[in-house]
Structures are given as C-alpha cells and as structure tokens.
C-alpha cells in the first residue's frame, strides 16, 4: 500500500530531445497516433516539459507528492491524493480553473491549459502499465519504479 511506481529521471542521460513530451501529448489525444493527433480539433497537450538548467535537462511533470500542496490548495476539492495509487487524482469535472495548484506546486509541474481553462497534470497514463513517456525515451533516462526499489539501486 502506498508504494506504487513513480517516475524518476536520470538527468545525466537526458539529451533534451523532448520525445517524452510528444509521447505524452499523443497518449492523451483521442486517436493516440502522432499524425492523426495533429488533425484533431482540440490539440492534445503534453503534461510533461523538458526544462534546461545549468547545462542539464530536466523532464518535469507532477511528482505526485505524498504531502501534496496542490491538494490542500484546491478550493473545489477537485484534487485528492489516492494513497493506494500514490497519486494525485484530478477530477476535471469539479475543477474551476482557479490556478491555485499551478501556483503552489514547488516543482512548477502543473501546466495551465489556457484554452480549456483547466490545468494539465501527469496522470501516469491512468490504466496503462507504464506512462507513455517511459517507452518514448530513447536513452532510458525515464525510470518507472517503486520508491523502495529505487533506494536499493
């Protein structure tokens, strides 16, 4: 319980190709196909961004903190922390688009979708075995593993 897999990054391996961004957007599109996704009326957007700082590249998406500031800050109670899944769950139907989660996130990992007025965040690709970004990474810089397993490495 509470020990689901999380996304980790080996920043030494990240070359900043942003393939994870593309894979993320495609995974959250209707067609789930790159070429077709670009023809969709509402363009899917990546929930992950690769940011560069001091010569290194950092893929950034929701860390699914155990003590999530965003959940506390959410006035509409659209955000809840699911302990079993070790994941912050976003109920888009309740979200009012106040951007408080965007502001309080210590990682800057929540992305405001200005068109839909709803923030975008990593959902670990919900029902998939692993998030799409993991398979998309050509250098294996994205690691999907339990926290305990990572500690053993």
């Amino acid at each position, binding site marked *: 319980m509470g020990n689901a897999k999380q996304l980790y990054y080996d920043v030494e391996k990240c070359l900043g190709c942003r393939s994870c961004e*593309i894979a993320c957007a495609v995974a959250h599109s209707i067609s789930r196909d790159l070429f077709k996704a670009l023809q969709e009326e509402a363009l899917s*957007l990546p929930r992950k961004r690769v940011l560069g700082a001091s010569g290194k590249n950092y893929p950034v998406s929701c860390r699914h903190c155990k003590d999530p500031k965003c959940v506390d800050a959410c006035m509409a109670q659209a955000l809840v922390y699911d302990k079993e899944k070790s994941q912050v769950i976003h109920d888009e139907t309740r979200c009012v688009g106040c951007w408080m989660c965007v502001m309080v996130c210590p990682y800057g990992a929540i992305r405001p979708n200005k068109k839909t007025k709803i923030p975008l965040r990593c959902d670990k690709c919900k029902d998939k075995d692993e998030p799409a970004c993991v398979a998309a990474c050509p250098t294996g810089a994205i690691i999907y593993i339990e926290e305990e397993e990572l500690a053993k490495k």
Partner: protein
Amino acid sequence: MSDVKNKSIDLATQEVLQKARDENIKTAWDRLEQQQPQCGFGELGVCCTVCNMGPCRIDPFGEGAQVGVCGANADTIAARNLVRKIAVGASAHSDHGRDVAHAIALVNKTHSPASAGHSHDYEIMDVEKLKALAREFNVDTAQPDEKIARETSQKLLAEFGRQDGELVFTKRAPKKRREIWKKLNIIPRGIDREVVELLHTTTMGVDNDYKNLIATGMRCALSDGWGGSMVATDVQDIILGSPEPIRGKVNLGVLKENCVNIVVHGHEPVLSEMAVRASQDPELIKLAKSKGAEGINLAGICCTANEVLMRHGIAVAGNFLQQELAIITGAVEVMMVDVQCIMPALQEVASCYHTKLITTNSKARFPGVIHVEFRPEQAYETAKEIIRAGIENFSLRDKARVNIPKHEMDLVAGFTKEVIFQILGGRYRATYKPLNEAIISGRLRGLAGVVGCCNPKQVHDYFHTTLVKELIKRDVLVLQTGCSAIACAKQGLLVPEAAKEYAGKGLQEICAAVGIPPVLHLGSCVDNSRILTAASHIITEGGLGEDLSDIPAAGCAPEWMSEKAITIGFYFVASGVYTIFGASPFATLGSRNLTNYLTRELEGVVGARFDFCDDPIKMAELMIAHIDKKRKALHLKPAMYQED
C-alpha cells in the same frame, strides 16, 4: 517463425530472416527495433539543423516555441527540409546520368552480330535510338555512328552545365504541360543548376515562402525526371541495348549452391554489364570449374539487378531489404556494389561469412572494404578482376552454413516506351493507338505507375502486391519499376498467366490478345522517365486529352524510403500525375499549411497533387477514384466490365 512472418510476406525472406535470427545476425528489421522510438520532431519535419543557432524545433502542439532562433516557422522549416531531399534525390539520378553520358563518348564501334558476346568494350547497341536522340539535339546523323555518339555525348553533358533556356528533353512533354511550366517559371534550365539553386534557397535566411520553396523544388525534380534520369535511361539503352521483353527469374532461390555466386548491387549498370559478359568468359568459367564449382552464377539486387534483368534476363536475387539476406544465405562469394541504396550494414553482415564485399565507385566506399575502382576504359578487365576474386573465394565458403531458400519465381521484364508501341501496335505499325483505344473504350480503366522502395516499417512486399492485385483486378494496367517491380515479380504478378488469375475481364482480354503480363516491368528507378515519355506519346496519339494531367492515370510509391522517391514523386506531380505515398507520409505534417498545399492546393497550380495513405486497398480506391474522375472529364464511358 511467427515473428519473421510479420516482417515480410515473401517466404524466402522469412526463411533467411529466421536463419539470421538463429545465427544472431542483425538486419534492418532489428535495427529498426533498436531505433524505437523514432523522433517525433523528425517525423513531422519540424526539426531544423540548417544553422548553428539551432538545432531548433517547433512545438507541434502549439504552446511551446513556434519559431526557430532565426524566426523560421513550421511551414518554412518543413518545406526547407523537404525540398533539400528533392535536391539530394535529383543529384543521385542526375549524377548517374552524367556518368553514362560520359560512357557514350567512349564507344568506338557499332554492335554487329559478329561481335555479339565477344566484345569487351561498350558498343552502340541501338543505332536507331542513338540517331533519334542525336536528332533531338540537332546532331548531324549523316556522319559515322561513333562520331554521332561523341557529339551527342557532348550535347548531353552540356545539359548538366546549361545556365539558361530549357532542357532539351522537356520538349518531349505535351505543349500544354510546357506552357504550365513556363507560366510557373519552373521549366528546368540546367540539370546541375537546379540542384544548386534549390540548395541555395534553403540555407539560413533565403527563401521563407513555403509555396515558393515547393516551386523551386518542383523545378529541380523536373530536371531529374526530364533531365538526369532521362539521360541515364536513353544512353543506357543506346550503349547497353534497348530492352525487349525477356524472361527471367526472381528471389533468393536464384542463388546456386554449386556455383560461384556473384551478386551485383546498386544502380549504375555500366560495370555490371561487363560483369555479365565476364561471367561468360571461358577462361573464368574454366577457373571456376577448377575450384570445384559448376560455373559462375550472376544475380542482382535493387536497380542494378533491374538493369541487367531488362537487357540480359539475369536473375534478380531480391529487392532492397534482401541485400543483407543474400549474404546471410552463406552462398555469396562476392557482392559487388556501385552506388545508392547500399546499406552500410553490409560490411558487418559480410564479415560474418566468407563473402567479399567489393566497392567499385569512388563515390561510395566503406572503410576497410576491398575497393576495385571502375574506369569505363578498362571496364571489362575490372569486371574480370572482381569475378576472379569471387572464384578464388569459393573454396572458403562454409558449406555447413549455406542455406538457400528454394523460392524463385518466373517473370517477364523488358518493357519500354518503344516496346509498348510495338507490342500493342505491331512492329510494322508501331503506334500507341491500340493502347489509347483500349482506354477510350473502357476495356482498360486506366494506367497506374507503382514504384519505389522497401521499408522495414511496412510488412515487406505486402503493400506493393496487395495494391497491385487490387488495381489489375479493376482493369488498371500497372507499370512498375525498381524494388516495387521486384516485389510483385516475386508474387508471380509479372507473368502473362497472372492476367487470368488476377486481372479484371477487360485487362485480361488485352493481355491475352498481345501476350503481356497485367503488370509491366519498365526497369530501374531512373527508368521512371520511361513512364513520362510513354505518357507523352499517349497524348500525342490523341483522344485522351491535351495534357499529361488529362490521362486516366495515377502514380504511387507504397513502401518508399529513399530521398529519390520524393524527387520522383515531385516530378510526377509537377508533370500532372496524381501521386500517393504509402508507408508514412512526407515529414511535413508538422506544418498544416505545407501539408494542405501538397495534398490539396497544388492541384490548382500544376493540375495534380499528393496524397498519403497507409492502407493498400484504400490507396487503390483513391487511385481508381482519380482515374474515374479523369475518364469522366474526358467524357469517356465508364470502364467496360466494371460495375463500380
């Protein structure tokens, strides 16, 4: 086997691929897997590496960077990337044309029956074609043949360096088409010039208008189709012989267990032509027998194969994706390569066997690989040297590792624009009339050019053959070149008997009347120029409109991979032929404007457009819908035997 069955529909390929798996030898299919995931920015054409302020990428999902450091947007970046590929493809074909245009100056005699099979030099094999070509260039044809050849060679070479005016071959196009080119200012002036100018326009800070980039790209592509490629085809016919229908065999089964197997691979046939002759050299055959072989067996891969098949009926070992597999049979003594489509991986694969990889062209070398430089003046000696190396290598073959698949198929090749004349009209009333009348009456629904490469992203040979079967079933006569022709040949579509099994009633009647296959093999990829000239003859004959874009015809490249395919696509579209690409589309989808321009608006500009389609039956539907649209525009009756 279940895994290899998903890779190719060709049984020989499946078998040898399994052998590769068992022996742990990596092929293109494995390397494709290793390359996953492939970069989405590259796939969409929105990665720019033109200048050192980059590399820059445009965010295809709209919120990230929409312009590069210089300010170029997705339209400019995708268009520049695309037309650069046109320049490279045109360079490949045209440089090939240049080499053979040089070779024609070397001929010093005309072929006679007495010299047949004994000559070690290039000869004028088709005097009529030489004279016809000379007349086009205003060369005096009353002088001795070799003088005509030399003067024509000079005129042809001058086409490459020409600075202005129009390429002479563009005069072969119908008047109306030439007027369109003139109006758009895309009539090619010089073969080399168009490549250089196109590349210039794509450097940092020159052309930023994607429509203008495409126009410059089309002019360059036309300098290939109605220039470099046409030079290559015509000159090769003159010095190597104009093809005539000929039977041959195809697939890896043509390799012979008890013979010295020499595989020629690449695109320029001037040396492999001599290899054909040298393989029949009594001295070399004797040497081969002294080493315990039954003889010398020559086979080809890719377009070099198509060239020697078309003219001599030399067996084809396979198409592009089978180059590694030929070596993996363990039975190839020498693979002799010239230029284009030669996988760098061959060196590694060859090192797993006794096979000697031999490069022959200074433009295409591998580090550490034996190089025997081809010089046209000593072509025969060079060919002999290479074959001798193969014979010497025969004893090093590890018999335990030899496994040649049994699969081979008959085919008929050797169709040209001249032969289509003769077959349909008869030698003494050579005319396109019967072909035109067949289309007008609706016995033939129309024509389709199905060309291009293989690509491991597709199930090998599947798209080509499924598409072609559907087209002929619906009374469309299919013209093929390159690896696409080899794919269909392997599935038995290039024999006259295929008409009965696969063709619609109308096409069957024609095939039965004149004894041709429902799918005609026109040669190598430079021989796509034959399709252009054949189409021009159709217009001249009359009854099917005034422009190439009026003909009920469509083109496609189902399993394409090469830059050359893009260039061919562009010269077809710029010539008025609706053209569809399979496998994956051009890397332009990152620019909605450019994609829209290519797939829609271009029709209003040059009378034809591109389409992209990833399903063979759907592609056939698109082509047939286009053919029917053109039939309707010409006020022709619907196809005679087709209800749909």
